[in-house]
């Protein structure tokens, strides 16, 4: 006879319901899966067979057809094992199909019948909830992820037998308890702190501004000056994630399968640092399965590109669109998927191939030719540089300073200021659909970056003196807004503009003559 079970599949971050129909008839024994299954889904039959037998159910060979509807969408992943097994048991009348219609079933089966963790539970649950589904059965290993979503009833059985007993009314299961989101868990997990970075006041200030307003930052400095250490300190001053942001990021991490199973939620802002050999697809996403890339994994967090000129130039250039738009659209012949990618770009580079150009150390003088330096700096294109709001030079620290300087401000103190600036921004953008200053579009800039006469004059002078581009000016305005927010000023003052200008001039590779 025929049995139907409801399951769910993902297309990018959005889900769609999948009806799993299993029909068993008399005839030559077979087990066919139709409805555009991928190889993983086809293999389900082997797992289903063993899992059913090892759960002490009957798997007498029959002519079995499994249909995954809608039949024209390609089905990926192993989440259909569990619903297929349940539908099979229902169609062979081993369990009652009375309550089957109420639940959405998801899960991978192990050969012994236990349920295994799957990817993408969070986006599936959110998307199904929006479509009106309220009751779910998922593997117990995914329970943590589900616990943060309110308004649904989730059961997380350990194995197929328990699930069937529950569906047949023979056993009670406790629905997954809701948890309240708290970002406090993230505290003090770091082994770096701004306190240990000696000197570098300017670079630290740049970090603070960048993090406060979500601005892109480029650190340029001689080898060993401390660029990477500074970058590693960024998570220590990053503001806590709001629930909304955490959900956005968790959805992506859930799909990518890199979610911490115990935590069930991304509570710490992601800090992604792909190596400079990273391929284009791994960075922006794509491939035959249209997976999400590092830019999306860094959503609401930081994408750190150490030694930026060492990356493939073409790879770097693809970053231009996500930096500007905050989303990546991965388009393949079969489908087009949009992944959010609102990240803060932090990059570091040496001033030249030998790494010593501009050093004040007599023994560390640059040996590169002018052409070599130009070529090196040229690996980062002008349009990409233009999209970076803050440039800062990180210079090596003198020994005295390194050893004797009083301990600097610690990360926690900086973080307090960052949080304050972010709170101001949250309040301001409450009805604009964005989180930070860096995301302001031209309309919002006009609305929130009003300049008085003195600031206007200063900006005009800077525009002329430093040959700024139109885009640079909007970037300066955004940074000035952040500087004012850190200081708690409602209006942007001339000093704020001046400081923003300071971080936008002297881009690397732009030597005087």
């Amino acid at each position, binding site marked *: 006879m025929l049995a139907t079970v409801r399951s769910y599949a993902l297309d990018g971050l959005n889900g769609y319901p999948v009806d799993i129909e299993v029909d068993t008839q008399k005839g030559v024994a077979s087990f066919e899966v139709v409805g555009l299954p991928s190889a993983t889904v086809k293999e389900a039959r082997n797992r289903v067979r063993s899992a059913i037998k090892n759960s002490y159910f009957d798997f007498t060979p029959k002519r079995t057809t499994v249909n995954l509807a809608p039949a024209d969408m390609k089905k990926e992943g192993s989440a259909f094992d569990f619903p297929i097994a349940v539908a099979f048991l229902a169609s062979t009348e081993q369990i009652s199909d009375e309550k089957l219609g109420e639940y959405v079933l998801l899960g991978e089966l192990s050969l012994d019948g236990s349920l295994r963790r799957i990817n993408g539970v969070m986006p599936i649950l959110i998307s199904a909830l929006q479509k009106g589904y309220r009751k779910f059965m998922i593997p117990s290993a995914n329970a943590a992820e589900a616990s943060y979503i309110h308004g649904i009833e989730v059961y997380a059985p350990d194995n197929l037998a328990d699930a069937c007993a529950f569906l047949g009314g023979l056993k009670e299961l406790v629905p997954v308890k809701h948890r309240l989101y708290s970002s406090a868990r993230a505290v003090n997990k770091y082994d770096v702190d701004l306190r240990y970075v000696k*000197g*570098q*006041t*300017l670079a*630290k*200030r740049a970090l603070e501004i960048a993090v406060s307003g979500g601005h892109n930052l480029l650190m340029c*400095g*001689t080898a060993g000056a401390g660029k990477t250490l500074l970058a590693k300190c960024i998570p220590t001053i990053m503001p806590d994630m709001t629930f909304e942001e955490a959900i956005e990021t968790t959805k992506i991490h859930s799909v990518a399968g890199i979610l911490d199973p115990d935590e069930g939620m991304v509570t710490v802002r992601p800090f992604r640092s792909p190596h400079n050999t990273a391929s284009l697809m791994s960075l922006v996403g794509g491939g035959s399965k249209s997976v999400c890339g590092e830019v999306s994994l860094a959503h609401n967090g930081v994408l750190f590109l150490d030694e930026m000129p060492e990356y493939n130039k073409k790879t770097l250039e693809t970053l231009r669109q996500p930096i500007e738009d905050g989303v990546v659209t991965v388009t393949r012949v079969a489908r087009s998927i949009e992944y959010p990618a609102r990240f803060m770009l932090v990059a570091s580079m040496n*001033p030249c191939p030998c790494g010593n*150009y*501009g*050093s*004040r150390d007599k023994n560390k003088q640059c040996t590169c030719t*002018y052409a070599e330096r130009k070529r090196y700096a040229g690996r980062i294109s002008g349009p990409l540089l233009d999209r970076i709001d803050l440039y800062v*030079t990180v*210079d090596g620290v003198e020994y005295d*300073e390194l050893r004797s300087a009083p301990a600097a401000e610690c990360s926690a103190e900086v973080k307090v200021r960052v949080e304050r600036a972010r709170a101001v921004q949250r309040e301001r953008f409450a009805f604009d659909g964005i989180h930070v200053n860096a995301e302001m579009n031209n309309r919002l800039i006009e609305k929130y970056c009003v300049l008085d006469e003195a600031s206007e004059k*200063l900006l005009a*002078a*800077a525009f002329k*003196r430093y040959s700024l581009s139109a885009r640079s000016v909007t970037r300066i305005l955004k940074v000035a807004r952040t*500087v004012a927010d*850190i*200081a708690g000023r409602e209006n942007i003052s*001339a*000093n*704020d503009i*001046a*400081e923003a*200008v*300071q971080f936008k*001039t*002297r881009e690397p590779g732009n030597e*005087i*003559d």
Partner: protein
Amino acid sequence: MKLTERRSAVLWLNAVVGFGSAKINKLASAIAPEEIYADPARFAVKARELIGESAGKLRFGKSDPKPVEDIVRTLRSAGAGFIVRGDGEYPQSLENIDNPPAILYYKGDVALLKSRCLGVVGTREPSMYGRQCTEKFVSALAKLKVTIVSGLARGVDSVAHRATLESEGRTIAVTATGIDLTFPAANAVLSEEIAAKGLVVTEYAPGTPALAYNFPERNRIISGLSEGVLVTEAGMKSGSLITADYAVKQGKELFVIPSAINSPRGAGGNKLLKSLQAAMVLSPDDVADALGLCAAPQEKASAMQLDFTEERILDALSFSEVSFDDLLSVTGLGVSDLNALLVRMELSGLIRKLDNNYYGV
């Protein structure tokens, strides 16, 4: 652009046949160029005696006027003109040197060639010190109505041209490429500005790319045009030493600004001083006195009101370049305030930001 027979002939020899000034001068010393142009075959034997095998290139001449017309059209579309020896605009100063340029292509005010000129040359990679000295000397001297001649190269040359333009003086760029090209390409904008407000001049035919052997040869024109040559900063292998050499041979004044003895970028200039070939100059007045230029009226001290902190910063920077971190402790300001103050001071031209968060005056 009037095309007399003589002008067409020299243009033909240089741009169509491809002879340089040396060969053209040799030919012109025996035969008038216009006669060769009229009938090259007639002078084949004589030309071979004068300039050897390359005389074989002398063909067609006036019977085929198209190539010359093409060149004239190219020049016209580039907004350029040319003068040859004997033209009214051709300066006497160049007639006096060894191997005067037979033809000069130019863009801009050709009359500048006859003004009082000072060559300013130096390394392509100047230190901050070299840059500052060049600016200081050039802007002071440009105000004394002396035309600054340089070579449009990177580094000191560009600084000299820019400083002249900024102090609204006049400048000549003697280049080593065709008049329709700019080398280095990065100076294209500068070159246009010089053409608009001064003069760009070259002895090389349109289309000549940057060829290494043309650059030293070009230097004789820089020194030739000038009453004196000022070397602001030159390393041991700097091309400006060649210019200095020409200046000495041509009997011009040679001025050198001394550099620190441990500075490789100024070693060439210091060597010139040690060998007593050049006069050491310590201020723009030294140059002005030697050239007999009347001193400019003393400029009034800037009326800008500086506050206490700004004074302190300027004080600190007057001794040496100072890092941002050190300025923090000097002024006692917060990072944010100092940042803003430094940008304001830079915008008003009091200080400037250097590499690695250092500041200088």
